């Protein structure tokens, strides 16, 4: 085994601000209003006036209309003479992509401080759940309209089909999916911002109703209405800000594509493998250097597969790794320390990003993980189709 020479990377961009709108299961305003609130909060957190922001990137949910989060958010915030403005849509991979493009724009000198915001209002009424908002058919077969014609509706069914394939190929089990959900719930219990904090046992998990087998309700994310924004700026500027800087060290993307032919297994081999390899290389690190993960885990299986795809455990052993307690509080590789999408809150790519910022700052309170030196943050769109990741750290230079 050859040990690769590591180059020391010195970060040139950083996350300097984090802002939340209110978050609720009830209607609390429009996507556009919530987005403005979150950007203002993030700017204040970074010690900036709104007029100091010269870049704005927008991320709406695939289930929302473009006009619900228009470029005119610029005017809502009174931003003038922006050097960067875009509405981005790469589904669940978008939020991490915003951070990537913002960091590149800052490094290239296009802009000084970029606000990146995600906002969504999937819950429209007092008794609405998330299932209806996310019940759109996912195009997995390759013929438009096919899944709808077949009654194969919703992201839950799509990910459930992928999870069952993993079970068939590697022998992963319902109890391993449950162990993932339980670990997330343990973290959520320590996070005042998390929505599902009640302790859960394996019996509770196994007794919870199936949505789409093999997924029970606790395998699925917990959607909320709300918005989260980040401020990306240069590492030099971030050092002078009021908050501990969260340095951006490496980044990668992987969008594998599908053939729909025998031998192509998009349910278990995903672009996350490539995204991770590129990110590790760009940061001059190895997978074994990662000390904690903040995964885009809208379903339990996505978190388990993330461990495998990003090289953090052997192929096929993600479920066993989780069942051994490694990702739970006290484990050797903490994953989704705020409760993630399952028990924390589902605001797509901003759930893992916001928790990474909190952990890198050492602001995690009861859930703070001491080893926050290198945090892997991922985005995942489609049904395991579109992958992005960033490596962040409280350290400007990685040892």
């Amino acid at each position, binding site marked *: 085994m050859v040990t690769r020479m590591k180059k020391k990377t010195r970060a040139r961009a950083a996350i300097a601000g984090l802002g939340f709108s209110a978050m609720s299961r009830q209607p609390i305003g429009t996507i556009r209003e919530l987005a403005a609130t979150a950007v203002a909060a993030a700017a204040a957190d970074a010690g900036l006036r709104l007029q100091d922001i010269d870049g704005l990137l927008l991320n709406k949910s695939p289930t929302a209309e473009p006009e619900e989060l228009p470029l005119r958010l610029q005017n809502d915030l009174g931003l003038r003479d922006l050097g960067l403005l875009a509405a981005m849509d790469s589904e669940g991979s978008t939020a991490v992509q915003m951070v990537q493009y913002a960091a590149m724009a800052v490094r290239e000198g296009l802009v000084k401080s970029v606000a990146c915001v995600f906002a969504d209002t999937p819950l429209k009424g007092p008794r609405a759940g998330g299932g209806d908002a996310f019940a759109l058919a996912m195009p997995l077969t390759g*013929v438009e309209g096919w899944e709808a014609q077949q009654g194969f509706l919703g992201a839950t069914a799509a990910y*459930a089909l992928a999870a069952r394939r993993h079970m068939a190929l590697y022998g992963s089990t319902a109890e391993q999916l449950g162990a993932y959900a339980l670990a997330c719930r343990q973290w959520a219990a320590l996070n005042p911002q998390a929505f599902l904090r009640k302790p859960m046992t394996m019996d509770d998990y196994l007794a919870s109703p199936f949505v789409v087998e093999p997924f029970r309700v606790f395998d699925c994310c917990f959607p909320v209405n709300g918005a989260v924004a980040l401020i990306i700026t240069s590492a030099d500027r971030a050092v002078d800000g009021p908050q501990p800087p969260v340095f951006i060290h490496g980044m990668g993307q992987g969008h594998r594509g599908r053939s729909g032919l025998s031998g192509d297994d998009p349910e278990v081999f995903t672009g996350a493998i490539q995204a991770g390899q590129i990110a590790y290389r760009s940061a001059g690190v190895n997978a074994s250097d990662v000390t904690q993960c903040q995964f885009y885990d809208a379903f339990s299986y996505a978190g388990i597969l993330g461990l495998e795809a990003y090289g953090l455990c052997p192929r096929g052993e993600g479920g066993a790794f989780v069942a051994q307690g490694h990702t739970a509080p006290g484990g050797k590789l903490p994953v989704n320390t705020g409760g993630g999408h399952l028990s924390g809150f589902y605001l797509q790519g901003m759930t893992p990003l916001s928790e990474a910022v909190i952990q890198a700052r050492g602001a995690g309170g009861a859930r703070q993980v001491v080893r926050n030196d290198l945090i892997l943050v991922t985005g995942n769109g489609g049904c395991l189709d579109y992958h992005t990741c960033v490596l962040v750290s409280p350290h400007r230079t990685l040892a």
Partner: protein
Amino acid sequence: MDSTFFHRYDEEFLAFIAAGELRIPVHTETGRALGLHQRAWCVAGDHYVQWRPASGRGAVLSFTVTRRPYTPEFPVPLVHGLIELAEGPRLICRLDGVTPEAVAVGQAVHAHFDRQGLVFRPALDDGNKADK
């Protein structure tokens, strides 16, 4: 946001389905089937690729059982399979004639049509296929 844009490719495949036929793209020189995501031949007007009738034989690679009702058109429990056709293409399809408890990965299935379109049922035996 629930808008689907159909292209010629989709319309052709779905027209065969509406006529009670499962056809797949086949390269006429190599005899090999293309995956249903490999749509470029249709856009490029590649005449070497044609929609050819599939044998209808397949195997279950994965399956789901939908328990939460999403739409009255599809009552639950609703069983879907990820089917690999004998020719190589894979597609998601309803499974009929098998209970949620009996469905299994590796099961041999065969294409049929009901009033909602294509559906796969367990193959009666390997030698004598239950067609139509």
